[in-house]
């Protein structure tokens, strides 16, 4: 109540009006200060010292206090302050150590009143007593604070900061005798003006210089400090030991801090370097500024609230030689632009996400996603009616726990480690990867690899005899094959889409559709037969017969003029290879899996069982007969990659992308590729597969991705002999060469390359843009000691 009445009295009669505006000064400003009447502002700098009247629409220069022809260093101002009791009284701090007071009531042109030359070094700050008319305080680089009585020629008392430079001094607004001073070494001191012999209290507030401080206008005990360490801290000084209440982390050294009037938790800051904006923070919300003023083009050097009881007008001076009035309603509010959604994986696979409450609420009403058997282990929602931001951007946080055992990703690790991505002909890569996938029981993936091989590898690899044998109906036969594959993968919706895609490339779309359905049906039949009658060894056994059964069915729908189908001889070694390695049970399991998968989906008709395609493999050789250029399939391959990525198997997408290289890259837009790459790399690193992730980075063609390996330039190597790190002394270990005496003979015999690192499993870590996160991960995995960051230059 009391506050309210005070506000009204303060503002009564002349409620502040104005708009966001600026005016050009002749020179950079170092500091500004506002007159008590809120209608005038003084700007001081190295070569400027002027008073401006703040009018409705503009600033009007009222008085130039720099008089005289010769520029004097006494006028080179580091700081300026306007007395809050006396409208005629100003004080400036000069860079040469002089404190000057000015009396605007003087009739002469020169308003200079008194000159105090007691400081030996630059005076950084001057401050009038809030209620006492004649008391002025100064803080200087020389480590002293002096208190002046303006009725006397000399200082009344001197306070020593023990030869540490004083950066700011501020009288407490509530305690008559108290003032705070901040120091270059990070300390804050509290003094009683009557006791110059020693400070009342001292504590270390910041790491590095404390550039500024400000007492809370209403709260007796609160002091805000800002330092070079980019922090703003709010201290409660009423307790026995200064207690840190709030801490705001900004992005640059904090040059000034000023509490916002009438807003208990708001303060404005500007920075010393680099960042030109003025921020208004709510100290309870230290991560996002409540408001931001972006008018200045160079660092802001002085800020002042126009009226001690009006929170909406902020004045600022800047190195860019402008004086600005900012209106709070015109400020940009970063909160509005903030994305209130977030998602993050925990170390053990837990998943947390935050989203707008409205979204979460809507979600909860819906039926949970069928495939998701996991539930949030906790669900947090801030319920604070006093919270001022709840309307703006409040999020609900949910955390999901991994189901123990359920989310085993061993297949991922195995696949990542065993896949071959480069260094061999495409056909070999595909075969190898198909084999790997099959061994891990991922038949669909294996299938894809095999098909890719067939699509992209030059027909020369397959003997001409094989080419000729096939049913020749070429496209129409081949396409259904592809289709069946795609259909079963993508489910009904996507499948039909593919069908359409494909039909674009095929003149006889009708036939093709017929074909595909026919093939599918056949496949279905086929699978059933296999599943029931010929378990496991159908691959080995008389595939011929089955295929014979199969093909005539197909041929019915296609051009009959093609020569009779002959089983390709070359298919056998391939199949042998496949059969040799996996054991029977795995196959059975696969078979059991596939119906399960299809059973989950609604439209069984369009689904081809996974396993049947194994038998179709041999058929697919027929494709070469068609002499279709691989380009023809690029649309399908692209869709296939997208499909895998959507399914969450970004590993497949990236691997195929790398293996196929130029053949498909042009069909997929850069951003998607980059997204896949980064996701895959992230996953790899999550599983500590540093080598693989490095290889992927190296092989990627996306610029943004390959940059990941270029941020750091250091190769850490351990000596193979003594296991100590060899810090950049080349390939010879100092210690060992010393001890052995043979000048690294031993080391030379066993050059400590990566292969001889003590922990071959964890050899390389790219310290990159993501390094902070990655190192954390490394630590938490306990691999750090074992990990030698290695960078494979991608140049």
């Amino acid at each position, binding site marked *: 109540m009391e506050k309210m009445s005070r506000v009204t009295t303060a503002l009564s009669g002349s409620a502040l009006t104005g708009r966001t505006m600026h005016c050009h000064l002749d020179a950079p400003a170092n500091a500004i200060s506002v007159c008590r009447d809120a209608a005038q502002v003084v700007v001081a700098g*190295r070569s400027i010292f002027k008073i401006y009247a703040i009018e409705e629409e503009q600033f009007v220069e009222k008085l130039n206090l720099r008089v005289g022809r*010769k520029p*004097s*260093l*006494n006028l*080179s101002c*580091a700081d300026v302050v306007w007395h809050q009791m006396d409208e005629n009284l100003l004080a400036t701090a*000069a*860079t*040469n*150590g002089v404190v000057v007071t000015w009396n605007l009531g003087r009739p002469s042109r020169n308003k200079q009143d008194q000159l105090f*030359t*007691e*400081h*030996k*070094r*630059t005076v950084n700050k001057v401050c009038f007593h809030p209620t006492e008319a004649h008391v002025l305080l100064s803080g200087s*680089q020389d480590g002293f604070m002096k208190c002046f009585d303006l009725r006397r020629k000399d200082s009344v008392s001197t306070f020593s900061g023990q030869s540490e430079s004083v950066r700011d001094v501020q009288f407490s607004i509530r305690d008559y005798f108290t003032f705070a001073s901040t120091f*270059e070494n990070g300390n804050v001191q509290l003094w009683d003006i009557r006791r110059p012999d020693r400070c009342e209290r001292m504590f270390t507030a910041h790491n*590095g*210089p404390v*550039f500024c401080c400000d007492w809370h206008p209403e709260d007796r005990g609160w002091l805000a400090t800002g330092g*070079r360490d980019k922090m703003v801290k709010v201290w409660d000084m009423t307790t026995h030991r200064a207690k840190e209440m709030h801490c705001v982390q900004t992005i*640059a*050294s904090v*040059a000034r801090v000023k509490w916002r009037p009438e807003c208990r938790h708001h303060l404005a800051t500007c*920075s*010393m*370097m*680099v960042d*030109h904006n003025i921020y208004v923070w709510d100290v309870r919300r230290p991560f996002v500024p409540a408001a931001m003023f972006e008018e200045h*083009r*160079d*660092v802001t050097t002085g800020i002042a609230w126009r009226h001690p009881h009006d929170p909406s007008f902020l004045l600022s001076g800047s*190195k*860019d030689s402008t004086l600005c009035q900012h209106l709070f309603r015109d400020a940009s509010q970063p909160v509005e632009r903030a994305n209130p959604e977030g998602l993050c994986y925990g170390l053990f696979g837990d998943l947390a996400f935050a989203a707008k409450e409205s979204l979460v609420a809507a979600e909860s009403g819906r039926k949970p996603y069928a495939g998701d058997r996991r539930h949030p282990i906790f669900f947090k929602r801030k319920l604070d009616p006093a919270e001022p931001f709840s309307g703006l951007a409040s999020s609900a946080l949910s955390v999901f726990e991994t189901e123990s055992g359920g989310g085993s990703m061993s297949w991922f690790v195995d696949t990542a480690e065993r896949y071959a991505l480069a260094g061999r002909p495409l056909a070999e890569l595909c075969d190898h990867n198909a084999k790997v996938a099959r061994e891990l029981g991922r038949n669909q993936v294996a299938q894809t690899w095999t098909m890719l091989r067939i699509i992209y590898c030059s027909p020369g690899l397959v003997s001409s005899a094989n080419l000729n044998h096939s049913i020749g109906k070429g496209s129409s036969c081949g396409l259904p094959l592809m289709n069946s594959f795609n259909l079963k993968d993508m489910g009904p919706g996507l499948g039909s889409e593919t069908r359409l895609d494909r039909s674009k490339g095929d003149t006889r779309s009708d036939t093709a559709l017929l074909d595909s359905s026919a093939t599918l049906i056949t496949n279905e039949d086929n699978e059933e037969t296999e599943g029931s009658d010929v378990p496991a060894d159908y691959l080995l056994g008389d595939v011929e017969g089955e295929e014979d059964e199969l093909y005539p069915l197909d041929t019915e729908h296609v051009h009959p003029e093609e020569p009779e189908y002959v089983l390709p001889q070359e298919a056998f070694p391939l199949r042998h290879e496949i059969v040799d390695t996996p054991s029977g049970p795995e196959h059975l399991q696969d078979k059991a899996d596939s119906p399960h998968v299809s059973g989950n989906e609604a439209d069984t008709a369009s689904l081809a069982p996974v396993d049947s395609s194994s038998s179709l493999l041999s058929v697919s050789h027929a494709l070469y007969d068609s002499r279709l250029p691989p380009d023809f399939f690029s649309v399908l391959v692209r869709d296939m990659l997208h499909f895998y990525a959507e399914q969450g198997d970004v590993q497949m997408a990236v691997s195929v992308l790398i293996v196929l290289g130029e053949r498909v890259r042009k069909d997929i837009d850069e951003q998607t590729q980059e997204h896949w790459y980064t996701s895959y790399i992230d996953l790899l690193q999550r599983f500590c597969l540093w080598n693989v992730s490095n290889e992927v980075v190296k092989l990627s063609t996306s610029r943004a991705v390959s940059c990941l390996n270029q*941020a*750091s*330039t*250091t190769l850490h190597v351990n000596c193979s002999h003594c296991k100590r790190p060899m*810090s*950049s*002394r*080349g*390939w*010879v270990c*100092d210690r060992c*060469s010393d001890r052995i005496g*043979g*000048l*690294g*003979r031993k080391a*030379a015999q066993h*050059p400590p390359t990566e292969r001889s690192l003590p922990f071959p499993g964890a050899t390389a870590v790219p*310290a990159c843009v993501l390094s902070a996160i990655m190192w954390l991960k490394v630590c938490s995995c306990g691999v750090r000691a074992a990990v030698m*960051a290695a960078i494979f230059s991608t140049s």
Partner: protein
Amino acid sequence: MIVADSECRAEIKGYLPFARGGVAGPGTREEHQEGRARRGPRGPSAFIPVEEQILQEGAESLEQHLGLETLMSSGRVDNLAVVMGLHPDYLSSFWRLHYLLLHTDGPLATSWRHYIAIMCSYLVGSHMTEFLQTGGDPEWLLGLHRAPEKLRKLSEINKLLAHRPWLITKEHIQALLKTGEHSWSLAELIQALVLLTHCHSLASFVFGCGILPEGDAEGSPASQAPSPPSEQGSPPSGDPLNNSGGFEAARDVEALMERMRQLQESLLHDEGASQEEMENRFELEKSESLLVTPSVDILEPSQHPDILCFVEDPTFGYEDFTRRGTQAPPTFRAQDYTWEDHGYSLIQRLYPEGGQLLDEKFQVAYSLTYNTIAMHSGVDTSMLRRAIWNYIHCVFGIRYDDYDYGEVNQLLERNLKIYIKTVACYPEKTTRRTYNLFWRHFRHSEKVHVNLLLLEARMQAALLYALRAITRYMT
């Protein structure tokens, strides 16, 4: 650019074949040790006599310094470290930065860092070795023209930083950062700049203290490298204490003490000089620094031919900040761009570790004191140290508003000024004579202390100019 090291030639020859083979040869080290053994009584410095007890102390205190061993990657205490070890507190922070700049992970490739160091420093020999060991391309060592375009672009700013840092403008920065095939990133540039200034100022220290190159035991004529010209002019006895002028020197110390006392008192009584006078005093000091320029005859370039291939414009040297008749660049106002406020904040953003260590190093150097002056102890030397620091900055055109440059005149004797000016601006011209002439009654460790101030003040001055240019570029 400032180069004295001649051993490098031999070293390069020794290394090149190995380097081509891919692995640095193991033989060199052995040779090195033998060389050290054979060197006998030669001390680490040409100026400071070996017998000087304090040098041994320096080496010992150095060994005592825990953690230094690991920092000094070379695993050996080199001459530089022995001399600098007279001030162990400083040495440790110096090495920390040195190690960070050259060996710790950072934006620039290690071999590049050594190449940059080669471009500007005395330690060419050891950097060449390291350059090759860290996988540098031996081709580059044939000259700057063989180095990549990106590195060549740095040579202009290298030249300016070394000799006339006040000429660096935001256009230079712009040219380096302009996007293109050979552009620098801001982080890389900052590291390169710190490295360049570090090497330049290190060169000042090396010449200023007459530190001998490592391991050239054969006594080849080149072993006198750090003090090539007018060596013959120096007095035969290197020990000032035994000089006939000993008494005189002692009187000088007394006089200096007296003046410091007077200044202290005058400050208390506050007889502040007028503004114009202050202004004049700075100008006077600046222009007087013109007069303490080494005589013209030794000004002609005496660069070592080996190194010239890394220098694009060998005739470019320090030119007096205020040369009469020419348009003087505006004075750098120290208060408008200080290291503590602005320089640190900028570096902190782009090269945080470097900023921290630089800050510590400047602080250690500026506040280092043993409260002694010659044979007196318990003296507050802050005034003298500040005079030296500000005088060095004055030579580079940096003016402190709150400093009365009359103090410089009273506290720094003419020989000291000559020495400071020479070491700061033409380090390769430093002779034993100039070293011996100043502060004749002072200890060698105190003279080394002056050199530390020189090193740091020079580095800070160059950095401030460079960082100010970057700041201007960024705004």
